[in-house]
């Protein structure tokens, strides 16, 4: 299987904790595609898992890698939207 990956710098000023982690996992869940998120050499974790996302301990400025199956319908658009969310200051509003 070919995978699409996106390397993103976490834009949330509070890292992927609490509300930002919840908003991110919620968005990943709504996309309905199997997308993983990985920090450094860590294990890729399901992006729709709030516990997995919180456990990354990703801080503002950390680099994370999103990955999904390239053959899934709408994969590129989905991963791009998630990457954009991740790069923004999610909790800023």
């Amino acid at each position, binding site marked *: 299987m070919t995978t699409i990956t996106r390397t993103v710098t976490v834009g949330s000023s509070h890292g992927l*904790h*609490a*509300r930002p*982690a*919840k908003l991110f*996992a*919620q968005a990943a*869940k709504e996309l309905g595609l199997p997308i993983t998120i990985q920090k450094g050499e860590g294990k890729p*974790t*399901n992006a*729709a*898992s*709030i*516990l*997995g996302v*919180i*456990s990354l*301990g990703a801080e503002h400025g950390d680099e994370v890698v999103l990955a999904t199956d390239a053959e899934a319908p709408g994969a590129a658009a989905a991963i791009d939207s998630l990457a954009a969310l991740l790069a923004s200051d999610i909790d800023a509003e």
Partner: protein
Amino acid sequence: MAELTGVGIGLGVAQGPVARIADPLPAPEKTASTQAPDAEKARFRTAVDAVARELESRGARAGGTAQDVLEAQAMMAEDPELADQVDERIDTGHTAEWSVVDAFAAFRDLLTEAGGYLGERAADLDDVAQRVLAQLRGVAAPGLPEPGHPYVLVARDLAPADTALLDLDLVLAVVTSDGGPTSHTAILAREKGITAIVGVSGAASLVDGETVIVDAETGTVTTSPSASELAAAAAKADARRAAASAPLSPGALADGTAVPLLANLGSPAGAAEAVAKGAEGVGLFRTEFLFLSADTAPSVAEQQAAYTQLLEAFPGRKVVVRALDAGADKPLSFLNDSEEENPALGVRGIRALRASEQILRDQLTALAAADAVTDADLWVMAPMVATVEETEYFTAIVHEHGLKTAGVMIETPAAALIADRVLARTEFASIGTNDLTQYTMAADRLLGSVADLQSPWHPAVLSLIGSVGAAGAELAKPVGICGEAAADPLLAVVLVGLGATSLSMAPSALADVRASLTRYTRDDARRIAAAALAASDAAGARAAARAAAEKENQS
């Protein structure tokens, strides 16, 4: 009617229906499932769905940041990684109950190991696990009850997490079967002015929905009350409300003897509330708040600004500031980072300040500067003094900085036993009853298993307080009380009888203590104190004081 007794906190009276806080559910046994894995998985999915929907609907009702927390908990319940972990366990023949608890525990350990913010989420996860388990078993989820109307909360004891969520508009009173007067529940009740009785051994027999009267003044819970008892309790509650809104007169005994009532404050922000509740000054201003969040000591200028803000709130009034009270039990990286086997007996209080004298000097410099630009009557005292030599050291260094009134806290039996020699070398003493009790009874105040020994009512503690009071009277030096003990309306009378000249407490306790003092003369207080001193234990001292007080009231 029937009565259950315990230790009342404050003088409140309330009545209403009981709602119990459910105990944590017993852990499921690791027994093989009698159902097919698919059936167990279906049970799990149904339970998780119900819990998530319930958390979401509670979130929608709560709104604000609580909604975010509850929605995040709903997502935890439905977490796909967690579901995989649970499925794996069910596939090896385990019950849904055991699989849920075990899989949640694995995630919990992961979060706890990470510490910090993630560690705090472990408690959220525990709560979700309990809810799913309760759902699977078809029982009520543990935690605060939600009967939908005001209630008398009955619990074994309240965890800090429970108290954070207490809705004071709904909780009429709190009754706990465990815990003593220094328990978390008691401290919270005192701070928030909640009617509470702790240590009610019969509380386990109270059932949801039954009406009770909770009278903290007498320490009794009345079950199956008669109509006339309910009416009398309502009248008493009304009278107390009227007293609370009565003019804020200075603290005094029935014979007019002044007993200034002061406030314990932990930051300048509390000053306005203290003044509104009639505090005649500050008997204990804790300065730790300036230091605890800092990796380095705050600058003189920063400290000066905070002290000035405090002193400005009390023009012409006494404000007693305690020098930084830190040690291995309240660690400050820049002051003391050595590990100690027994931190309560280690380098803390005045000992820590002497070891880092510049911190003390900076604090005194800032206090003197704040004093110079304000009109309060500033007193400064040293924490955890054990010797005459420490007293001389502290008094000299305070005067050296141009501050006129120095004193020491009496928190060790050593200082109390030679209070006459200690007081001869300084201007005043203030008794910290929490630590004095801990050191007298050799009972760690942070350890629940010895909480029953942690009572300032113990005649050994009262006797030490009496020796300080006698020394103060002989030398005509003020002896204040600034521990939790002063907030207990009856104990306050005993303390005055033992020679205390002022009482300092959480502002919420002022009204009750003010009302209690006006009922007794100085001679009454001495007789009540003598009765308590003659008892064999803390409960006996309280009972003897109550009996003596009732006799004085009748005569």
